[in-house]
C-alpha cells in the first residue's frame, strides 16, 4: 500500500509517458527513414574512402548514443543516490541495455569499417580500447543491478558503479585528442566547425536524431514495464497476505 505513495512520481510518469511514447516512436521512424534514404542513395561517396563512408551513418550516431546513454545513466544514478528518487534508479536500469546495444553496434560497425580502410578489424589504441571498456561497464552495471535479491541494495551498488564508470566517458571522447590513436579525431564536434561535407552531414545528423528518439521510446517502454512490474510485485504481496 505505502509503495504507491512513495512512488508518487511514477503515477505522473505513467500518464505523461503515454503520450510522449508515440511521438518519440514516430519521430524516430521518420528521422531514421529519411536519414537512411539520404545516406544510402542521395549522399556522395567520400573522395578517399569511397562507398565505405556510408558506414559512418550508423557508426557515428551509435557511438554518440553509447556516450549519451551512459551520461544519462550517471545523471539518474546521482539523482537516485542524492534524492532517493526510486524512478531515477529504474530509469538507470531501463537505459543500460539501450546504451549497451548502441555500444555493440558502434564496435561492430567500426570493425567492419576498419578492416577495408585501415587494414585491420581491431587495434588496441586508446579510442577502441576505451570504447570496449564502456561496453563492459554497461554489462557490469546490468549484472550488478540484477545480482541482489533485494532490489534496493542492487540498485544502490549498481548506481555507484554507474557513477564510478562515468570517468571513462571523457576518456572515450577525448582519447583521439590526448594520445596518438589509429582512430581519427572528431569530425563534427570541433572548434572550427564540422570537417564534413553538408551532403554527408545532413543524413548523419538525421540518423543521430532518429537514434535519440529511438532511445527515448525504448527507455519509456522499458521504464513503463518496470513500474508495472513493481506494482505487480506489491499486488502479489497483498494477495499473499490476504490469503
Amino acid at each position: 500500500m505505502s509503495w504507491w505513495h512513495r512512488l508518487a512520481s511514477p503515477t505522473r510518469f505513467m500518464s505523461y509517458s503515454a503520450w510522449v511514447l508515440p511521438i518519440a516512436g514516430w519521430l524516430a521512424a521518420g528521422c531514421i527513414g529519411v536519414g537512411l534514404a539520404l545516406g544510402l542513395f542521395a549522399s556522395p561517396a567520400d573522395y578517399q574512402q569511397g562507398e565505405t563512408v556510408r558506414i559512418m551513418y550508423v557508426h557515428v550516431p551509435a557511438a554518440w548514443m553509447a556516450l549519451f546513454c551512459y551520461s544519462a545513466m550517471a545523471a539518474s544514478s546521482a539523482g537516485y543516490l542524492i534524492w532517493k528518487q526510486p524512478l531515477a534508479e529504474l530509469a538507470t536500469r531501463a537505459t543500460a541495455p539501450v546504451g549497451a546495444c548502441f555500444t555493440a553496434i558502434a564496435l561492430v560497425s567500426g570493425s567492419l569499417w576498419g578492416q577495408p580502410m585501415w587494414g585491420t578489424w581491431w587495434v588496441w589504441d586508446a579510442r577502441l580500447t576505451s570504447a570496449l571498456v564502456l561496453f563492459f561497464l554497461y554489462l557490469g552495471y546490468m549484472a550488478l543491478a540484477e545480482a541482489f535479491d533485494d532490489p534496493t541494495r542492487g540498485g544502490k551498488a549498481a548506481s555507484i558503479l554507474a557513477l564510478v564508470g562515468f570517468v571513462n566517458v571523457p576518456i572515450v571522447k577525448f582519447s583521439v585528442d590526448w594520445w596518438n590513436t589509429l582512430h581519427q579525431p572528431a569530425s563534427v564536434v570541433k572548434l572550427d566547425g564540422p570537417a564534413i561535407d553538408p551532403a554527408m552531414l545532413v543524413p548523419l545528423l538525421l540518423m543521430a536524431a532518429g537514434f535519440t528518439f529511438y532511445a527515448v521510446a525504448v527507455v519509456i517502454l522499458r521504464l513503463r514495464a518496470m513500474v508495472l512490474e513493481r506494482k505487480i510485485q506489491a499486488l502479489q504481496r497483498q494477495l499473499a497476505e490476504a490469503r
Partner: protein
Amino acid sequence: MTDGFFAMGGYAAYVWPAFGVTAVVLAALLLTSRRRLKASEALLRDLESARPRRREVNP
C-alpha cells in the same frame, strides 16, 4: 544502376553487414522491450480483476 548500388563500389561485404547488424540489434531490443511491457500489462490486468473477487470471498 541497382547493380552498382548493391555492390557499394566493391565494399558490399562491409557496408551491408554494418547496416544489417544495426537493424537487427535495434529491432530485437525494441521487440523484447515491447513484449516485456505487454506481458506486465496483461499480468497486472489479471491481478486487478482477481483482487475484488478475493475480497468477496474473505471480507
